[in-house]
């Protein structure tokens, strides 16, 4: 028969109490911190997942910022180019009207309006966004240098925004593509020529520029289409990014956070167990033969 002693009982009782109290403490800590994994040793694969998810979520937040920034670029470019489009329609109208106007004063008025349209478009082409030339590629700008002629001051590089791990989108169009700077394709030169021809009364030459204007309008439309496509791309990516963030955060919460109901139950179970141990011990440890001897 195993010999049982008071000292042995006290020791094992203390050990059991200690175990119970430690489980109670763990349950309490989990509940108060709300975290199932506090250090890597709690759950190694869980921690690996947590770190991965946190990095991905942070990257996703930044990608959303990148996308929003890209969208700003595209929206500003879109608005600006729409005004250019309006102004070009007006210029075309004026050119058509010039064909039937012989009055020198009226032609002068048309010429100066054409010039003012040209200058409007020039100022749009040199639009800045956050202090940076919008249509000058990656160069410092300005996009269009107006001197003796009109030349492109920027470069042909794309400005790109990373809106996903593998998703780069170009958020600029450059003035060279939109306004054209080769001979005969230069919108500014065309408008200048129209004004000059109007003043000199060369109606034939003025009407001859209508083709140039149409090609300029096509280039502009192509630019606008590119902007629209990129905008759609970013819009879709942002929606996807939002969805992904929700999924990732849900995943993270699943790994990282405790199940509140389960944790409360666990705490109560541990509490009951601790009290039961205390109760049992107070009963077991008390009686001794000493109590029954006179």
């Amino acid at each position, binding site marked *: 028969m195993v010999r049982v002693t008071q000292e042995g009982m006290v020791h094992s009782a203390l050990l059991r109490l200690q175990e119970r109290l430690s489980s109670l403490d763990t349950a309490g800590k989990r509940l108060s911190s709300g975290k199932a994994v506090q*250090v*890597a040793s709690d759950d*190694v694969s869980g921690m690996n997942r947590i*770190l991965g998810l*946190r990095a991905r979520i942070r990257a996703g937040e930044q990608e959303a*910022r990148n996308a929003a920034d890209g969208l700003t670029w595209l929206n500003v470019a879109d608005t600006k180019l729409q005004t250019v489009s309006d102004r070009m329609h007006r210029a075309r109208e004026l050119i058509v009207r010039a064909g039937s106007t012989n009055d020198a004063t009226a032609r002068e008025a048309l010429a100066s309006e054409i010039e003012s349209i040209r200058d409007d478009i020039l100022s749009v082409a040199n639009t800045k966004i956050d202090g*940076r030339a919008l249509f000058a590629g990656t160069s410092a700008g300005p996009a269009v240098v107006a001197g003796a002629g009109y030349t492109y001051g920027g470069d042909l590089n794309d400005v790109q925004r990373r809106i996903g791990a593998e998703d780069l989108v170009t958020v600029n169009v450059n003035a060279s593509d939109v306004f054209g700077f080769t001979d005969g394709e230069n919108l500014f030169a065309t408008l200048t020529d129209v004004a000059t021809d109007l003043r000199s009364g060369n109606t034939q030459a003025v009407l001859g520029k209508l083709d140039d204007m149409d090609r300029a309008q096509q280039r502009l439309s192509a630019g606008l289409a590119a902007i629209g496509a990129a905008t759609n791309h970013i819009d879709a990516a942002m929606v996807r990014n939002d969805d992904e963030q929700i999924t990732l955060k849900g995943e993270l919460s699943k790994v990282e956070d405790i199940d509140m109901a389960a944790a409360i139950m666990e705490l109560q179970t541990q509490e009951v167990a601790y009290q039961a141990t205390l109760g049992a011990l107070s009963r077991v440890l008390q009686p*001794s*033969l000493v109590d029954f*001897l006179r």
Partner: protein
Amino acid sequence: MTQFTALTSALSALRASQTGMDVTSHNIANANTAGYTRQRVNITTSTPYYTSVGAIGTGVKITDIERIRDTFLDMRLHASNSNLGSLEVKADLLGRTEQVMGEPDFGVTKELNELWAAFDELSLRPDDNSVRLSAITALGTLASRIRTVSDGLTALGEDAQLQLENGLEKVNDQIQQLADVNDEIASISATGAGVPNDLLDRRDILVDELSRGIGATATYADSGMARLSLNGFDLVSETRANALVLQGDNTLLHPSGGVVNAGGRIRGFQEFLDTDPDTGVLAGVQQSLDDFATELLTQLNAQQAAGRDLDGDTGAATTTLLSMAGGASSLTVDVTRPEDLAAADPAMGALDGSNAASLALLRSVPAPPRVTGDPYVAAAQTITITSGALSSVVVTGAADTLNDVITAINAQLAVDGITTIVADDNGGALRLRETRSGTGIEFTVSSTGDAFGTEGTHASPVVDAVLRSVVTDLGAEVASMRRQAGAEQGINNTAAAARRDHNAVSLDEEMVSLMTFQRTFEAAARVVTAVDEAMQTIVSRLGIVGR
């Protein structure tokens, strides 16, 4: 048979009962004394008295007062003590190491995520100095966080070293105490008197503590003196104490000149502090942190050099982002001027931010593999120069280094009548350039098999993953050590409980023997009275018939 014999045996019973009550009361008094071993009076019948009708007993004799102790149970506990001592020290120190890392909320991973975001932000506004500054700040915060963790590990090591020194001091002190107890035991044995059981208890307590402290085991001489030894070396031999000396490399020197392999807590500290990164716990973590810092530095600096800063500097002319003189604790940010961040791709315009985007992309896409050390060529590889007017070059011999390859290629080039070439490392692929100026012909080198084998080319890991594995590897080690320590604690508890159940005082038992001795005492006293009355009859009543 005489009346006197009965008196003598009653007296012996009285004495035996008294001694029994004395020992019982000593047991009860020490029921809560740590390390106390219960004692028992052993009695036997005394030499009988021979008469014509046979031998008649003459009462009871006390043979000895026995310590109820089982050496086997002690040995079982001591073996577990040695393991437990080492495991609990390591589990505790590893847990603290994990806290120093501060993951996931206050650690390096968080700052690293912020750095990637700052680079991304820089790619949006490469022309904005305040954005550039905040990228530099993010870099600084990350470097400082890495340094703090590294310094924390160093401080933890210093603390453990101090604990090791204190622990050894305590062990040496206990070794001396045990030798002193042996001395006392020897001097009492010499007088012929029995060795006091309580002195033996003191001896056993010291042996218990030494088994946990340093994993020593004891054997006992008949005299009661303990001989304490540790993997073949005597720590206590009779009355001589052999204090151990901690050497510079944390090994323990025995006075005899040998190096003692410790167990117990001392071993836990030694293993934690082992400076070999492959075996030492702390050195391993420190090394993997250093490796991470090196990887981070290499990849960031390479990407920085691939870009162009606002001053127009490219390649080697750019300021490096990070530098490190020794380990991770010396990681410093080199770039201080916002203009020095190479945000632009050299092929792009002044306000390009694509190199900053590439910096940020290092978070998930590994840098190209790079050649480190001495590239290695396996035996007899055929190397064909594909874009150049050369016939193929055969390199023979085992373990040729890059230089051998170049020598062989140059030999072939000399045959073909072309000037010599030099080789350089182009992001992992070996690129051979003709030294002849102006032509700029580049050769690519292909080979059958693993020409510039594994020793030379190192695939670049994703920095994030390197860091994550530092954290999770440590976590796995902590968890495993805790499980081991927990299991050993269970074994230890069982062994301790078994010994306690054997050694410790049971009050019920003592109450029963107290009662037994009390009753025996009362009965023996009654015997004395009975004999006394009988004698009185003889003395006063005999020969007075008819008076």
